[in-house]
């Protein structure tokens, strides 16, 4: 799991530019699936054929990023956000483009009050001395991501894009481990979640599943003076009750709780006040798809150093495997 997570979080793949991460995941899942294909928007779908329920499992493979909107005469890049990028999270961060070009993010220092900082007053410095020099390295529309290789401290790891490569890792491991199942399983690595759940919408339409489960990170409430939230890092995967995009289908939620109890897997119940995930799009597909979410507790979400506990990930895999190997009555 550690190796896989390091590989996935270290691979480039902001919303709309998921080619590299798709290739890496495809390599990981190919020999375990009966069929692997990519849909019109770019989501990767690995199918494990079966005769039972059609289950769609989704984790988004895109990550947030900084998209170049202009290059000035001195070679500085102006940028906008791809997904939820806060100005404060990117100050003096190292970022990397798909072609390997790296830069540092900074801002116009004539700014009187740092609280007024907006992305429009920031830029990426890639060390270019002129517009031409910059243009030889980067084009308008290119996207940079955090350059933050995964670091390990015990069971816990930090790095960029745990949101949602942690979910992708859980799905890959689940696919590798799930054996005795009658259900038809669709492991979907979705695109463009961070800009509005777009890949989940189209992939779910193509699959028309009987039930949908997405795996994504969620926030925690266990750091000093944090916003109250009954989720702690390392205390097990979270079973979502609701967020801003979806109310978990009661029967899916109950099934998750029941299976966790039967298998003695620790779990937490999650109510996320803001934010959403792929299930928000999946559950509204066609005539409706009963959907739930298994969340990985994660600190410092959308920063360059998101922290997860590997135990939560392995327990999420165990929970998914037991759900998929048993009867699914909704």
């Amino acid at each position: 799991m550690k190796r896989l997570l390091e590989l996935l979080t270290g691979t480039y793949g902001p919303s709309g530019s998921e080619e590299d991460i798709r290739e890496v995941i495809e390599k990981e899942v190919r020999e375990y699936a009966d069929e692997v294909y990519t849909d019109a928007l770019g989501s990767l779908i690995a199918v494990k054929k079966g005769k039972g329920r059609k289950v769609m499992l989704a984790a988004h493979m895109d990550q947030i990023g900084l998209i170049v909107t202009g290059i000035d005469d001195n070679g500085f890049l102006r940028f906008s956000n791809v997904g939820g990028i806060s100005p404060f999270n990117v100050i003096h961060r190292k970022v990397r483009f798909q072609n390997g070009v790296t830069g540092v993010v900074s801002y116009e220092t004539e700014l009187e009050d740092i609280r007024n900082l907006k992305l429009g007053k920031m830029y990426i410095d890639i060390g270019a001395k002129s517009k031409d020099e910059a243009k030889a390295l980067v084009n308008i529309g290119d996207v940079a991501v955090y350059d933050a290789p995964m670091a390990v401290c015990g069971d816990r790891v930090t790095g960029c894009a745990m949101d949602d490569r942690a979910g992708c890792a859980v799905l890959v491991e689940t696919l590798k481990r799930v054996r005795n199942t009658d259900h038809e399983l669709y492991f979907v690595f979705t695109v463009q979640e961070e800009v509005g759940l777009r890949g989940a919408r189209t992939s779910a339409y193509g699959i028309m599943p009987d039930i949908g489960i997405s795996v994504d990170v969620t926030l925690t409430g266990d750091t000093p003076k944090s916003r109250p939230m009954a989720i702690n890092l390392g205390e097990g995967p979270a079973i979502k009750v609701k967020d801003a995009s979806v109310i978990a289908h009661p029967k899916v939620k109950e099934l998750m709780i029941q299976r966790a109890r039967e298998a003695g897997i620790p779990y937490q119940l999650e109510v996320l006040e803001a934010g959403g995930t792929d299930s928000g799009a999946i559950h509204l597909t066609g005539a409706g798809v009963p959907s739930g979410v298994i969340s990985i507790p994660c600190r410092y979400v959308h920063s360059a150093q998101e922290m997860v506990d590997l135990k939560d990930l392995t327990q999420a895999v165990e929970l998914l495997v037991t759900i998929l190997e048993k009867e699914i009555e909704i």
Partner: protein
Amino acid sequence: MVEVLKRLAEARGVTGNENEVRDIILELARPLADECYVDRIGNVIAKKKGSKGGRKVMIAAHMDEIGFIISRISDNGMLRFLPVGGIDQRILVSKRVLVGKDRVPGVIGVKAIHLQEPDERRKVINQKQMYIDIGARSREEAEKVVKIGDYASFDSDFVCFGDNKVKSKALDDRAGCSILLELLKDTYECDLYACFTVQEEIGLRGAEVAAYHIEPDLGLVVEGTTCADLPDVPDHLHTTRMGKGPAISFMDNSSIANKDLFKRMVKTAEDNSIPYQIKENVAGGNDAGRIQTSRSGVPTVVVSVPCRYIHSPSSVMDLDDFKNTHLLIQKFLKGVEA
């Protein structure tokens, strides 16, 4: 092409009330298309069969424009109104409007500067404090010519001026509609579905419906977009620049361009020596947002004509940009294999 643009831009078609524009488009599209119909939400769909057929290309421009809807008639005959679509309330005062089917002339009023307190003068007047004055003396008199729910649109002439520029309301997106009509004069290898959509300005609603029943293989959107190449705007926030050609978008708030289509559009411009620019901002959204996520997904790309002072009664566009946008898309469509 400019004559058609003038006719379309002067027609009135505030979101939800696109009839006038739709009638003109039907009249002009019918002789050009193999099939032309109005769908259940009001979109006009003009189908042009390809010489080889096969791939379905949906090209969309929206018919609707921003405007107002009458919400209340005061005892003194003044009309209270609500904006339809994104309108900068600072531009509203003293603008002429036409209300309802019978084009009742009116003017947007607020209390005169003499009556404003000093601190009121420094503030932006809220749209809620404004009213439309149609010269009626009483509610009864006003009700003879206007009903609650009537639409009002800017009363603004289409004028050619300066160095090949035009000034008009509703260039967003009658410019796109005119380009679609011009494109229908040609034939292509692929099947072309020219969609003149409704209700873009309040949430891309027409395009969602059109994309669902057309089920295209590829989506193209032709828009009027922001152009802020103005003295007080720093260079990196210009978004697009007038006279520099059609603007190709890599991303906006509603969609991310399909990379392959984006590259092919750029290459088409370069191969044919058509001036073009990349839209240097991620602002705004358009029909592509709904087309792209329709059913199991549709690769899309957006090309726009830069318009200064967009969403106002006097937006300004360069006619070369307009014609080059048509030319670029025409060449692009010629290159789409069946």
